[in-house]
């Protein structure tokens, strides 16, 4: 029986189909461990080998990885949420209600999206804290720290644009308060210092952000497109750069 099973297994793993998909076996050799990383599109951003201290949870806190995981969770749940949501003032709120009460697991989906987004904001702040405490921004990683600061902003902006989409009182007023400060931008805001007289509330920087003089239907559409398309694309591009640079700058920082 055992012999038979072994023969069958060999037959399958030696078949043309199997070998076209999996390019390496499962023998316990360093060569296979290396191939496992190099020949896998999802893993190939890793180097084949790293310093042992980089495994240490006490050192890394895993926060960069958790941030990326949270981004993936929001991306997957976000795509699913888009099936049930229309970004118009007439429908937005009721679509969220419908999602909560009538779609199977709709509430769970929305919860996961929101809490993963909050989790991402927390983990990205802690990641920055860790990178600072370990002095990991120092030469040669200066530029990657700058990319990281931009990614922190992008994370805030992703979360902030998503905050408006439920179109309830919480969303509306949080975004109203959050964008009110743009009125006071020096020169470019109509209430800011040194604003030229032809900067009014219908052409200043806040107007550009809100697509109106108050938060309204066009703001909802604008934030929806920023939240679902523009900012995630930007974040993905910057993350690719960030991870790439981690490797090119010599892997994660360490005592040696």
């Amino acid at each position, binding site marked *: 029986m055992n012999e038979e099973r072994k023969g069958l297994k060999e037959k399958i793993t030696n078949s043309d189909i199997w070998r076209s998909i999996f390019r390496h076996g499962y023998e316990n050799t360093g060569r296979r461990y290396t191939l496992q990383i190099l020949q896998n599109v999802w893993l190939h951003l890793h180097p084949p080998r790293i310093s042992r201290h980089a495994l240490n949870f006490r050192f890394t806190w895993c926060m960069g990885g958790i941030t990326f995981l*949270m981004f993936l969770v929001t991306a997957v749940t976000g795509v699913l949420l888009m099936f049930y949501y229309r970004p118009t003032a007439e429908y937005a709120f009721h679509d969220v209600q419908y999602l909560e009460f009538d779609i199977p697991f709709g509430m769970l989906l929305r919860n996961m999206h929101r809490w993963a987004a909050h989790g991402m904001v927390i983990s990205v702040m802690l990641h920055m804290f860790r990178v600072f405490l370990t002095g990991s921004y120092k030469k040669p990683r200066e530029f990657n720290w700058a990319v990281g600061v931009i990614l922190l902003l992008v994370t805030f902006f992703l979360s902030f644009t998503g905050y408006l989409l439920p179109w309830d009182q919480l969303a509306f007023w*949080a975004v109203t308060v959050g964008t009110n400060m743009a009125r006071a931008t020096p020169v470019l805001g109509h209430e800011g210092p040194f604003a030229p007289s032809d900067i009014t509330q219908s052409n200043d920087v806040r107007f550009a952000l809100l697509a109106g003089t108050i938060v309204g239907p066009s703001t909802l559409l604008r934030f929806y497109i920023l939240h679902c398309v523009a900012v995630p694309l930007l974040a993905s591009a910057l993350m690719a750069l960030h991870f790439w640079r981690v490797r090119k700058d010599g892997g994660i920082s360490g005592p040696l």
Partner: protein
Amino acid sequence: MEHFIALVTKPDNVPIVAILFLIPYFIWLSYRQARQTDKTGVPSDAHLNDKVYVWPYLCRNEFICAIIVMLVLGVWSIMIDAPLEEPSDPTKTPNPSKAPWYFLALQEMLVYFDPWIAGVVLPGLIIAGLIAIPYIDTNPKGKGYYTIKERPFALSVFCFGFIILWIVLMVVGTFLRGPGWNFFAPWEAWDPHLVVPLTNVNLSYLFGIRDANTANFFGFVVVAGYFALGPIVYLWKRNTSDFLQELGLVRYIVVSFLFLTMLALPIKMILRIFFNVKYIWVSPWFNV
């Protein structure tokens, strides 16, 4: 007390409550490693210097970490529902109106500075300052391990900014601000009709200046004098301080400007809270 409990148990404030535990935990974790490094003079992970294969060692860690995080997220999502209030109504302003929790340190700064500073200039300088950090911190030590002894200045400035001026202000803005953005202690009930007498006066008034032009000039002198502290210290110490020599003039100007700007916030807070100072500099164009 009931308002405070309502705030703490509000679903959207879970991250703030989590931060209250996470930040002290990670400070403790890093402090322990830093202390060990500083005591022995050898980075605490220096012995872990051999190379290991990413598969399976790192991938296994990442996988386990992902499972644990997904488990926490799953339980969190099953237990606590995301908030959905009444449909939005531009004619019904809630009191207090709060920005999302991660912007509440900025909203809290609005108490002490006008919106153009608190909402635009300071956030802009925070970002610029963060990006500038690697270029102005010339200390080559403390790279890749936790230490306090080898970089006390950089650490204390960053920790003050991050923990006090960002996290603590965020927590205050979330939990201790009620109607009218008035301060309410946890045990106090929110009184929407609370009237706080506006007894704040400008700094020039405290010095007996009543004339607007003189006040403008006085404010300019105070603010300019404050930011001149940087160059003055440079001229005074440049020949004797190795630190300044190493830093160089350009880096020093950036460091001192960012440092003084950061300290301006707690200084203004103290002036407001203890001396009822409204503005330091009142000019026809802007107020500081």
